[in-house]
């Protein structure tokens, strides 16, 4: 041992003695060594536990990840139950309904109307056979009870198949709503103002109007879309009431078919412009003397900006035939304007002016006072985006003096 090294050892020993001198009397070096051993063991144990905890956390992360992945996989497409069965994943069920209360005073020979009526209860069923073939149907119960002598009826309004030809064009076959007007295809209660559907589309177009046939629909680009169908026609009776001519595809007379086409533009946010035209080979199906072919033109515009929306619609029939001309019903037309304001997510108000005439071709005889006018003003309250409560007041001003004025209240839903 060198002198230098001896000096260092001596110095270290002296410092150690000084540092432990207060305990020197209580703890021997042997006891200190034992305590250090215990501390080392404790440290080793903690390290082992720490390692085990890390492994457990890692496993928990893996488990959580697997659980999340499984849950997301189960619920990802539609919902868990649907995913359990493949057919259920491709099948959709929906519906809508509306309950109406009418409190109308009749004058000029028109009847009072104090009634509460579950006007429509509708169920949708759809099924996707594959990515390109779909089925859709709509089954409706009107006025709650159907049957012999009852007010209501059960109607199959739609049952058709769509075949996608490519991403832009689809062929349709079956029974479907005709592409005419604003509410004929989209008439779930939360989507429109007013308890009752507007009288122009009801009496002129006539909504709700469906037929059996086939055709194409799709998009042409730049915001333009089209529909073109050949389908069963109307069978207007000798009263020449267009609405009474709906055959509802119930053993419908198909002596003379009809064709409908629509061009629609929705290339600007908030704007819809549409033009529909229809040709009926023989609107009486050859069964009414003096009633021949007919043409329908319908056009409408919808403009929404901020809380404001304006809807405008015009529809007109031009019917050929000696008898229908003599009655004045060869021209049937009407229009309405409907401005509305959405106060909030829950509330909206509207007013609507309707004018229509089912005998606009003449001003004599029964056609002399055939023009009708109706003002509607009301409010919609949506407690949920798919549930609506409506209240509106209607005021009629008809040339024949027969008018029904008063309050309508409605409750509607869709899902």
């Amino acid at each position: 041992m060198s002198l230098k090294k001896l000096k260092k050892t001596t110095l270290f020993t002296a410092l150690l003695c000084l540092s432990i001198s207060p305990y020197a009397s209580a703890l021997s070096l042997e006891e200190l060594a034992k305590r250090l051993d215990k501390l080392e063991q404790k440290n080793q144990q903690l390290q082992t536990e720490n390692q085990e905890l890390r492994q457990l956390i890692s496993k928990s992360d893996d488990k959580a990840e697997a659980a999340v992945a499984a849950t997301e996989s189960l619920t990802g497409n539609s919902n868990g139950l649907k995913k359990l069965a493949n057919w259920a994943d491709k099948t959709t069920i929906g519906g809508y309904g509306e309950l109406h209360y009418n409190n109308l005073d009749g004058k000029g020979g028109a009847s009072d109307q104090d009634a509460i009526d579950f006007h429509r209860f509708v169920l949708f069923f759809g099924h996707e056979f594959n990515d390109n073939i779909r089925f859709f149907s709509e089954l409706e119960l009107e006025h709650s009870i159907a049957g012999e002598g009852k007010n209501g009826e059960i109607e199959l309004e739609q049952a058709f198949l769509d075949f996608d030809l490519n991403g832009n064009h689809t062929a349709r076959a079956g029974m479907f709503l005709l592409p005419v007007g604003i509410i004929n295809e989209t008439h779930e209660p939360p989507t429109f103002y007013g308890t009752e559907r507007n009288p122009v589309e009801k009496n002129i177009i006539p909504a709700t109007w469906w037929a059996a046939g086939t055709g194409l629909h799709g998009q042409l680009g730049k915001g333009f879309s089209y529909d073109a169908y050949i389908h069963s026609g109307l069978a207007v009776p000798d009263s020449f009431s267009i609405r009474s001519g709906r055959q509802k595809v119930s053993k419908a007379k198909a002596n003379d078919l009809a064709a409908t086409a629509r061009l629609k533009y929705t290339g600007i946010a908030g704007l819809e412009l549409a033009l529909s035209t229809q040709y009926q080979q023989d609107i009486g199906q050859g069964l009414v003397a003096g009633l021949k072919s007919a043409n329908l033109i319908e056009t409408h515009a919808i403009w929404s900006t901020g809380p404001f929306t304006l809807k405008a619609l015009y529809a007109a029939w031009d019917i050929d035939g000696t008898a229908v001309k003599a009655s004045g019903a060869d021209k049937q037309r009407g229009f309405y304007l409907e401005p509305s304001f959405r106060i909030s997510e829950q509330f909206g108000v509207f007013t609507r002016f309707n004018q229509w005439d089912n005998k606009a071709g003449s001003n004599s005889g029964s056609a002399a006072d055939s023009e009708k006018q109706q003002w509607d003003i009301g409010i919609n309250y949506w407690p949920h985006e798919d549930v609506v409560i409506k209240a509106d007041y209607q005021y009629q001003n008809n040339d024949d003096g027969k008018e029904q004025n008063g309050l309508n209240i409605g409750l509607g839903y869709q899902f």
Partner: protein
Amino acid sequence: MRKILLIISLVFLQPTFAKGVYQTAESFLQNNLKVNQSSNSSIWINKKRKQVITDILQHPPRFIRVKYWHQGSKTAWILDEVGKEKLITVGVVIENSKIETLKVLTFRESRGWEVKHKFFTHQFSKVGINSQHQLDQNIDGISGATLSVRALKKIARIALYLDKQR
């Protein structure tokens, strides 16, 4: 006759645009954030967040976490919501609590396809949410595509809300 056949061919043999995948998630993230799809973070939907999202969707969310991607001051979110019957997948890029880009990535519905167009999605640019989690600017709808429009507005609100929750 040849002309008629040519016109029919041109109409029906167009590339598919209405239904399908317009842009993959990977491409959307690369174009907007220059990040890979795998480099995501997650935000868990706890009780409070679930309540807010339920209020926005008007039904409980189907997810218990949401993945997102971030690069600098931007975040990107890819979310799904049902329009009428099928899920619509939408990518949203947010910077400083305002939407920079909103794009429909996959559209599976047979109606309401108009929401894919830029004339509609451009309206979401610079839109944020207020304290009630409502969009702070009006979005004009598309007639006939009401449910698809509604789905996109909900997705925008959820993305903006979760961006604030990071």
